[in-house]
């Protein structure tokens, strides 16, 4: 398993912490599923420790914490939020999210590269939420990122992997870089597909938090991710157009 800035993930599910029916259900979803990383947003909860009670609960989950800059639209906002996150959670990790489009929540990749550079120079370890664009990926790596997190589909849309061709190309282009599918996952089959493509982890939130039974869905995701990872490592067969019988058909006494 690839390491994320030197850290091995206990489990390749990175699970968001927003929108659960209650903190108790959030906690149960983590404990029961064994998700390895909790992503947490700081921006809406406000500065000056106002979200402290909730953040303390997240810290007590005992999983790795990946704070994010969700809801930021400019480099300046993102950098400020990242600094706040480092103080609150005492971690250099930051999921860098810079929204460029209101309806699709598509990342603004130009500002993303700029912010990644600023934060890396500040000593952060940046997990950039990006598109499947290879050149942007290269620029992010050049800016100091050691992980890339392309979207599967727009945030919260639950559409799965919209562009498997490009995601496969990205995997092939950056074989040594830890790659995470971030956003757009709706079903365990989507998460499994991401891992079958050779991705190293999956980040999701809405698909679990807004499911009728978030705890069951978190478990389903973890199992699908494990299945996809095993399948990838097992070197799956190639798809073909015609049947290939698994037992010989020539030489049988009777041919149907």
């Amino acid at each position, binding site marked *: 398993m690839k390491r994320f800035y030197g850290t091995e993930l206990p489990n390749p599910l990175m699970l968001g912490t927003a*929108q659960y029916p*209650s903190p108790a259900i959030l906690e149960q979803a983590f404990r029961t599923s064994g998700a390895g990383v909790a992503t947490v947003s700081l921006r809406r909860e*406000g500065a000056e420790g*106002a979200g402290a*009670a*909730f953040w303390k609960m997240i810290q007590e989950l005992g999983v790795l914490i990946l704070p994010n800059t969700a809801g930021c639209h400019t480099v300046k906002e993102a950098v400020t939020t990242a600094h706040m996150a480092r103080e609150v959670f005492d971690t250099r990790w930051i999921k860098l999210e810079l929204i460029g489009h209101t309806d699709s929540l598509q990342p603004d990749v130009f500002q993303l590269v700029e912010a990644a550079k600023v934060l890396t120079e500040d000593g952060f370890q940046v997990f950039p939420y990006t598109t499947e664009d290879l050149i942007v990926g290269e620029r992010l790596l050049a800016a100091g990122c050691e992980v890339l997190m392309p979207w599967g589909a727009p945030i919260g849309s639950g559409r799965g992997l919209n562009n498997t061709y490009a995601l496969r190309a990205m995997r092939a282009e950056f074989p040594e870089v830890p790659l995470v599918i971030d956003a757009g996952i709706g079903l365990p089959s989507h998460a499994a597909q991401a891992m079958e493509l050779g991705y190293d982890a999956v980040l999701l939130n809405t698909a679990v938090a807004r499911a*009728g039974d978030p705890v069951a869905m978190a478990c389903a995701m973890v199992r699908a991710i494990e299945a996809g990872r095993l399948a990838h490592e097992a070197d799956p067969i190639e798809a073909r157009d015609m049947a290939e019988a698994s037992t010989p058909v020539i030489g049988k006494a009777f041919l149907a």
Partner: protein
Amino acid sequence: MYSVIGAGVAGLAVASELVSRGAAVQIFDPAGPPGPHGCSWWAGGMLAPWCEYENAEEPVLRLGREAIGWWQDRTTVARRGTLVVAGRRDLPDLRRFARRTEGFREVDAELANLEPDLHGFSKGLYFENEAHLSPRKALADLHAGLQARGVAFHAGEAPEGLQNAIDCRGLSARGALPDLRGVKGEMLVIRCPDVTLSRPVRLLHPRIPLYIVPRGNGVYMLGATMIESEDRRRITARSMLELLSAAYALNPAFGEAEVLEIGVDLRPAFPDNLPRIRRIGGRIYANGLYRHGYLLAPALAKGVADLALNNIHSEMVDEDRD
């Protein structure tokens, strides 16, 4: 003599239930009678157990159903149902809401008869059995009703060592209830006589359950955000934008509304967002009504009365020790 500490919706409901069962009660609240210092002042006042069940645990539906009758004995309750709508691009959310709830019927053409001033919505869910009340009138009616039955209100701290104390202080009791947290809510009161809505309308939104509750005379309550923050000082621009955009989406004439009030406060909540009754060292704590102050206060009050008067442990009691 039972001493209820705190004159918000929890304290007044507990006092009212105790008095109705024949107990003698006095009430302490350093802030005096119900007012803007308590979060129940800023509530929506929806008695909407079926809608709330979309994102809440089962007791909210079951216990919440008892609320309408309890309140009808004590204040004015409008039984006009709830209407749930979604914008065209959020129709999947409406289907999901329908799947997760019960006690509604789908309406399309009928929508225009139910609420002629809702524009641009083709589908909705009508929860006919739900109701709403005016929180401030409900608090005033409870207060007046208790006074009429001889309950003394003390505008001051409860004295130390009080016997039979029932602590309904909300978030102020967190020193004794370490798993209690505050969940920030922001709301607006607007006046817009150009728009007539006769029942609470919920607009499904990917992040916030937005609703508008008619208060009469063209006044509407617009709520409410749910933020895991304990900053109760001010509303944020983003929240204000989201609340007003929701009103504008329901009817663009809301753009001309006057903003009468901005409310910000913290809902007291336990980790599963369900209320609790605890008896610790002789004092009963009743707390954690979260966003269900008016919906679950009657059940909380009954649970407290069962424990205090009859030593019956209802399902809300999770701790009883010296």
